[in-house]
């Protein structure tokens, strides 16, 4: 393994907690097994091993059926094969956004496109959604998320789970994008009285600037959620359930906050007008759904306080998954 992020992914009990107690429960909401799964992997590919361990992913003699992995480069492709006991149904290297947004002239983009729709899509990004200095108005990440909804809709899938992970150091973002996100929250405050009320209840803030200054990361998380809700509504999807969790890497400065979002998404079916209260309520209006993402305390997993506790819970499983590769293992000598 090439160290860095891969090493963390292979050993970090906090990340494993996210896999076990955020991702897996959301997959169970689909009430379907085996699932098809698109993952933006890191070579240890622990998510696939965990889901297979729980019977959510099917395997045969040679491969993980219905599992597609996209890694950053050929090095990660080689590392992934090394770290797996079987082949994935499709393993691609390259930028996920380019592959999703790409034309079919690219064989890889075409191969990926042919695998849609998926029951579960895991966009486990480790970078900002719209990088500072990026000379593009539309972020490739956001474009990719929109294209995912488009492809899922084209594939006629009625429900699926979407996981999105991103890095939330505001300075690392393009300022326009932050303004765009702030605008989204402001819109909610202005248009949804419930949102405004709940915002006040949980934070004591009445306007966007107060909330942003008081809880920048939480404001960011709610805004990103709202953005995704809007993107899904364009393809007639709506939210059945969602959750926000934070993974805070504070063992070594500077502190890094990784936002983990999980969504259970369903096809929007307009209610029949059989009662008066449904009149005018037949639109897939996702605005009010942002309210449920406002909370006083989000689940925060911190390296400084939670690592040891979670190591006790997950270490054995992490080690056993790391041992699960196609290669014969030889023991380490004492000297």
């Amino acid at each position: 393994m090439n160290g860095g992020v891969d090493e963390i992914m292979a050993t970090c009990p906090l990340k494993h907690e996210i896999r076990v107690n955020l991702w897996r429960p959301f997959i169970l909401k689909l009430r379907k097994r085996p699932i098809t799964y698109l993952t933006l992997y890191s070579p240890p590919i622990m998510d696939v091993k965990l889901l297979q361990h729980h019977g959510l992913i099917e395997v045969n003699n040679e491969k993980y059926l219905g599992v597609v992995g996209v890694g950053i480069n050929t090095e990660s492709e080689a590392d992934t094969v090394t770290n797996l006991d079987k082949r994935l149904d499709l393993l691609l290297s390259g930028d996920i956004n380019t592959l999703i947004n790409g034309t079919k002239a690219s064989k890889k983009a075409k191969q990926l496109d042919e695998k849609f729709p998926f029951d579960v899509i895991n966009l486990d990004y480790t970078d900002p959604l719209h990088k500072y200095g990026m000379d593009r108005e539309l972020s490739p990440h956001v474009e990719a998320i929109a294209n995912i909804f488009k492809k899922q809709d084209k594939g006629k899938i009625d429900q699926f789970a979407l996981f999105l992970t991103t890095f939330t150091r505001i300075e690392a973002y393009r300022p326009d994008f932050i303004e765009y996100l702030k605008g989204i929250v402001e819109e909610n405050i202005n248009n949804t009285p419930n949102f405004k009320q709940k915002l006040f209840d949980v934070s004591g803030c009445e306007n966007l600037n107060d909330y942003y200054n008081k809880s920048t990361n939480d404001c960011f998380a709610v805004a990103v959620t709202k953005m995704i809700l809007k993107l899904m509504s364009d393809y007639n999807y709506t939210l059945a359930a969602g959750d926000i969790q934070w993974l805070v890497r504070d063992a070594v400065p500077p502190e890094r906050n990784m936002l983990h979002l999980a969504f259970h998404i369903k096809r929007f079916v307009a209610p029949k007008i059989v009662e008066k209260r449904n009149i005018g309520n037949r639109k897939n209006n996702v605005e009010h759904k942002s309210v449920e993402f406002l909370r006083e305390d989000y689940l925060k997993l911190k390296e400084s306080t939670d690592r040891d506790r979670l190591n006790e819970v997950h270490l054995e499983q992490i080690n056993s998954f790391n041992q699960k590769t196609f290669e014969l293992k030889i023991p380490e000598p004492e000297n």
Partner: protein
Amino acid sequence: MQETNSQSIPIEVSSRILRHISRGIYRSPAGALKELVSNSYDAGAKKVTINTGYPVIEKIIVTDNGRGMDDKKFRDIITQIGFSEKNIGEEIDVIGSSKHTRRKTIGHYGIGFLAIGQLAKKATIVSKTKNSLNGIRATLDFDQFETHRTDGKQRSRAIDESRIEKGDKNRSRVAEEKFNIGECLIESIRYGREYKEESFTRVELSEIRDDVQRQIAGSTTSKLLPDAQDQKSYSASFEDILKLLREKEKQSSEVRLNNQKVPRLREYFYEMLLWELSVYSPLPYPDDDKLKSKLQHFVGLANKSEFELVVDGFKLTKPYEEWFWEKKNGFATKIFKWENEKYYNDYRASAYLIYQPGTMIRPKALQGILVRENSVAVGLYDTTFLSYPFNEGTKFNSLTGEIFASGLAGAMNVDRDSFNQTAEEYMALTEWFHEKLYSDVFPEIKKFQKTTESPSRIKSANLVEDVLNIIAQPGENITKVEFKSLGKTEKRRVKTVGKKLIINSDHKDCDMSVAKREKLIFATTLIIQGYITDDIFEKVSDEIERSKIKAKNA
């Protein structure tokens, strides 16, 4: 913790072997890897894994669960490369076999280790035997390579032979015929008590040679065709690879580069490596009921050694797939079998040949005959059928098979990838096999072709019928065209019956060779569209026939 006891010893080989190493004694990386697999097989391993690290190929790691080597055995091997006595055919136990399987060894370690020198500059070998807490770690460093960095990876390339020989004059020469080709550092290592029962060998190759990396990853293509990696197909299983190779060779493909069309020639080298390994290695056949029922004896021969090879997660088997047994153009495959026959003194051979009428064996690499000594292939499929002396035309393209023979060890060349053609055992085997081809196979195929409509003729007739029925639209003189057997005595080529045109499939002018097919389409179109009648067509055709005979006689 025990103190490390390490010692450096030179790696020495005979001058004969030296020349082979620097030129490369194996025809491909797969040939060299096969040697390491053979070492594992001879060590009684049930399983071998190879991690090539494709597509980067920074290291290649071969691990087995065989009996391993202790310090003494390893030293014996490394100091006697090219001099060690052959131990081919020795009966050994398969380690950990619940069925107490035994197998015959297929190689000799020393030569096998030379394979390392063809793939990489450096190798680290870790090995341990059962009932011992001691193991060895040996680091081999071959001198005939120079290192450099490419794309951030440490790689090596061979330096030329004359430099090695020149260097040797100034170096320690142990004996007249020995050359020093590098260093081997051996350390003893110690394992915890819990591992006492375990035995294994792990060979980690590093500083992989440039040309090896290129040959496996096809990165020459990447340089030539920047989008090559992007355009490659991914294979999830070994069956996918076989399918890919079969389908890819049917169509040539090209890309535009600097406004020029460039053929994609080196796209699937990695897949070919796996294919070659699957052919070379003593592997079982795939678990396929049809195959088991058709080639039971051979499945038994291949499967008895309990051996598994996994490369990069691909579980390799002999390269057959279900598709292979399907009818092609409506014809079932024909199988010829000879089981356990004496071919020379007490040496025995079993062989089978599969004939696929009217189609070529795909992938092309499967065409020919493969010779196995104790289940391990010597070379790849031979399309000359061991230099069969008679021309049988395209029938060879429709044949594939294997010979499982004993007693060929002495007839193999040093690369163990080809035979010394003058060796008596090999000559006897060739004679035995050619006699089968001459007496059993080709007469049977010819008989089959005479008594059965040839698939290519059927295909051709269908094409003619389809074309003519498109032309014979309602409103034309003829609205339906069909081939019909009118008997050998019927002299007419075509006959109209109402609005139907019948083509006499028994007439020699309608036998559907390409030239005759085009002529027939042209002439019958004239009839369909009312430019001539069937009688005029017959009259003119007879006249042409008579003129041809006259011209011939004149």
